[in-house]
């Protein structure tokens, strides 16, 4: 199991988000990556795309299935981890750092208090993660 950082927030659908001022770094948790199995493709959004909280941000495809990544916040895509399109290893091995998916510019004052902290996310996983 990857070491889950304490400075990020989690969604029920297994995205993580780290808010740095008005930039939100978004990724998938180790639980989601492990659940998908062997990764074969990552479809990332275009830079500048406007995304709405809860809508599809990216698709992560494994041998078995296609996993949707939902935007945990509303904003505009600033940057994506483009290398993942060719090599999914960073996402598989290091989902909380090198395997980040996208950076989203959010409006000042955006809060993540409604998302789970590490303790709450662990409880969510202990209950099955659904």
């Amino acid at each position: 199991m990857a070491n889950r950082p304490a400075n990020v927030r989690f969604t029920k659908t297994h995205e993580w988000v780290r808010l740095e001022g008005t930039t939100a770094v978004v990724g998938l948790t180790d639980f989601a990556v492990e659940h998908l199995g062997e990764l074969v493709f990552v479809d990332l959004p275009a830079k500048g795309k406007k995304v709405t909280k809860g809508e599809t941000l990216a698709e992560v495809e494994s041998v078995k299935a296609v996993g949707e990544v939902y935007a945990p916040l509303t904003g505009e895509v600033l940057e994506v981890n483009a290398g993942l399109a060719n090599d999914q290893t960073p996402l598989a091995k290091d989902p909380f750092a090198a395997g980040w998916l996208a950076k989203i510019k959010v409006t000042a004052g955006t809060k993540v208090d409604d998302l789970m902290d590490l303790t709450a996310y662990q409880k969510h996983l202990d209950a099955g993660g659904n």
Partner: protein
Amino acid sequence: MRKTPLHAAHVEAKARLVDFHGWEMPVQYQGILEEVKQVRAHAGLFDLCHMGRLVITGPDREALVEHVFSSNLGKMKLGKAKYGFLLNAQGFPNDDVIVYRGADVVHIVINAGNRDRDDAWVREQCATRRYRATVANVSDEQAMIAIQGRDSEATVQPLCSADLSQLGYYAFTEAKVLGLPMLIARTGYTGEDGFELFPAKDDGRRVWDALLGSGKPFGVCPIGLGARDALRLEAGMPLYGNEIELDINPLEAGLDFGLDLTKDDTIGIPALRAAKAKGLSRKLVSFVAHSGRVPRHGYELFDGATRLGTIASGAASPTVGKNIGTGFVPPSHTAVGTKFEMDVRGSRQPVEVVQGPFYKRAR
């Protein structure tokens, strides 16, 4: 969920278990791609206990099977197995099956998801025709284990009383494995050499563990349903529910080798003769995707704005090194080299028709 006699072995091996037609089955152990490679390079073990087995006996057993089985039992040598269908009167398959012709018995191996329907269907035909035959469903009394891959013979032989080098492709025999009596057949669903063993249910685990032990020098390990699906797709073998269904006839799926269209007294064959004479509106093709996206069952196929049909099966193929699939398209789009597109959740990805199968072992 139902559990096979090998369920505990899968839990101990830390397999990822899923619901497969009501059975809790291993979808993968160490990983689908690795497991495919192991079977192609050496050999692997498969739990097939969930599959159905019918045993037909009695003086009219062969007449009954000839009536319900799309291929020609009478032309099979004793001790041989053959692929075919249990067709309904309209020529659509209730199931695809393997029939084994013994001297005084016929065995039929049927799909897990169709166990109850097939059993009822064969009994009904037997009763309607008043055949003097007995249909026994031994699915819950028997285990079924496959070993597939080039090192299968070397793995099984030290445990087996029969000389396996004398057992031909699609042949079967009664033999002893670990001193336990069972049917053993040189059949499989991966495109590799290999065997399917039918021990008594309570002997299943012993045979499983012994095969893992004997196969250790070849890295023989258990293989899940995920790799099994990729292996059979690479080898061009159909899966019921994908390439074959109650609304897809076997001619459309290109499975003519499982049919004897000259038979007169077999359910569904007259309907297929008529369908063939009329001409087919769609055919199954094999294709590779020129895309990182994996083709998947149910995705739609397009030529520009024209919808061609749907994808039957798809996989990331470690053997071919590409994403591969099968799909039903009009006859106009079946030539090798024809290019069209698959719709992956709203995005169009290019695919190209290739000659199947994707993989053929050197013999």
